[in-house]
């Protein structure tokens, strides 16, 4: 049961009719029951297009997609009945109150009025919106709206919850509240699929993730596996005066296993950051600032694609 496959995609392609862009260019993945699965990549990598296809609101241009073993082309409504969707932009119904939003959304799923009433109290508590139940949605803050969107997506007790950049645009405090809610859902056994371009979010929430770039999957694994596979244990970040990154980097190239020159700093991939920094100083190279940190998914992405994730 633990290894039950909920979503299976092979050779999945999405070509957008306007402009003919291949947003998703032949990807394969499998999603297992109970896991938190992430699509990591920069804007335009094809994450949202993939999510829309899984959500059965966009038809694949080629390849095969099965959700709960069903074909979205013929069983879209049946699949959607078992999904919860949190879109990238909040699409809560601004003409209705918080409670009415939950109510009508439940109705779209064909739930009875009594069943919706039962669910609403718990969901308002989950979203910390008990005091706001009778307010127009227009009066809510960004964080509250996002929590309402998530609460709404849970009205039908979905087996899979799709979250497209769930914390984009939220302040740090609101992000942490949201992460906490998502952890709780995961513990309750809800399967999560999320997209993000935040490294810390992917590392915090995802059991397994795929790194996407230009419509393709660059690699796949747990955050730990990916970091081990594509990065060293630590990273030494050196900052030099503007325009001098490349020249200074030449002098320290052999200290690192691998070295990346970015416009504003130089990254040295090393096992021991402090030792490397000592070696840099020993050569008489003095950066403006130096920082030793653990490797993150950002480094994985940089290694895989040669580009940074968020510019």
């Amino acid at each position, binding site marked *: 049961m633990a290894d039950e496959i909920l979503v299976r995609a092979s050779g999945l392609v999405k070509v957008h009719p306007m402009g003919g862009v291949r947003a998703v260019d032949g990807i394969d993945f499998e999603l297992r029951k109970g896991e938190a699965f992430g699509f990591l990549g920069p804007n335009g990598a094809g994450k949202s297009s993939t999510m829309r296809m899984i959500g059965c*609101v966009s038809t694949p241009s080629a390849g095969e997609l099965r959700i709960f073993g069903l074909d979205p082309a013929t069983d*879209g409504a049946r699949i959607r009945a078992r999904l919860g*969707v949190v879109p990238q932009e909040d699409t809560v119904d601004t*003409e209705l109150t918080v409670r009415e939003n939950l109510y*009508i959304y439940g*109705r779209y799923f064909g739930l009875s009025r009594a069943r919706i009433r039962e669910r609403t109290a718990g969901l308002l508590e989950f979203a910390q919106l008990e005091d706001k139940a009778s307010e127009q949605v227009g009066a809510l803050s960004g964080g509250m709206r996002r929590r309402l969107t998530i609460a709404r997506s849970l009205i039908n007790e979905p087996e899979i919850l799709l979250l497209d950049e769930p914390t984009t645009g939220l302040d740090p405090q609101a992000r942490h509240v949201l992460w906490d809610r998502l952890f709780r859902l995961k513990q309750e056994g809800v399967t999560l699929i999320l997209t993000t371009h935040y490294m810390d979010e992917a590392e915090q929430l995802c059991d397994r993730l795929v790194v996407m770039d230009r419509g393709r999957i660059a690699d796949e694994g747990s955050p730990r596996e990916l970091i081990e596979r594509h990065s060293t244990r630590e990273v030494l970040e050196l900052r030099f005066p503007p325009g001098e990154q490349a020249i200074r980097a030449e002098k320290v190239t052999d200290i690192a296993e691998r070295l990346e020159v970015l416009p504003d700093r130089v990254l040295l991939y090393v096992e021991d950051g402090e030792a490397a920094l000592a070696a840099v100083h020993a050569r008489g190279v003095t950066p403006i600032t130096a920082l030793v940190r653990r490797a993150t998914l950002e480094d994985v992405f940089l290694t895989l694609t040669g580009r940074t994730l968020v510019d």
Partner: protein
Amino acid sequence: MTRMHLLVERNLMVYRHTWSLLVAEVFEPVLYLLTIGIGIGTLVGHVRGTGVAYPQYVAPALLATAAMNGAMNETTFNLFQKLKFDRVYDSILTTPMTVRDVAFGEVCWALLRGTLTTSGFLVIVTVLGLVHTPWALLALPGAAVIGFAFASAGLAVTTYLRDWQDFQLIQLVMLPMFLFATTFYPLGVYPRPVQLAVECLPLYQSIELLREPSLGHIGPGLLVAAVYLLVMGVLGLAIALPRLRRTLLA
């Protein structure tokens, strides 16, 4: 199984907060009736060749116009806002609801709204003593048919709109149609070629559908008008549905 009634339920919930807009919509034809129907009516007396008092002649045309506007405002202005800016349908379509549920639901709601506006206006017309036959009650199913035709047409038009400026183009069609479609004087005023053109207008057919019964004339002409409007409604939906699918399910 269709879930279009759920969209009607949603819109009813919204109108619980904004019911005053519906009252405003009844107010507009009342103004026309008072100023032109009754005001100018005192100068006109009876409509030539019919023996009908002028306000009594104009009232059903204003009823038809109210049904048209009530339905069409809903599937143009309101629907455009929901489609492009509030993105209400994007979230609805993540549920088992389909584009067809959304389109049929909106048209159904719009024709109900048009009929509701017409009913309110009909009460006022009756109170003013301008109704002389029980056949006038045919205005209610008539308004539903008119509402269907214009709601569907409005939906089709909305799928072509790019921004709010484009609404000027709708007004460019609607206002002349309102003025020329025998709202304020009979078809006989025009020379024959113009008559033919006016007879093709959907508002002319709508006015026929309500005016003839309210004057006590029941005949096959009513069927022509009804069929015209039903075909218009079906065509509107046939154009709108695939276009909405393309927009919403890209």
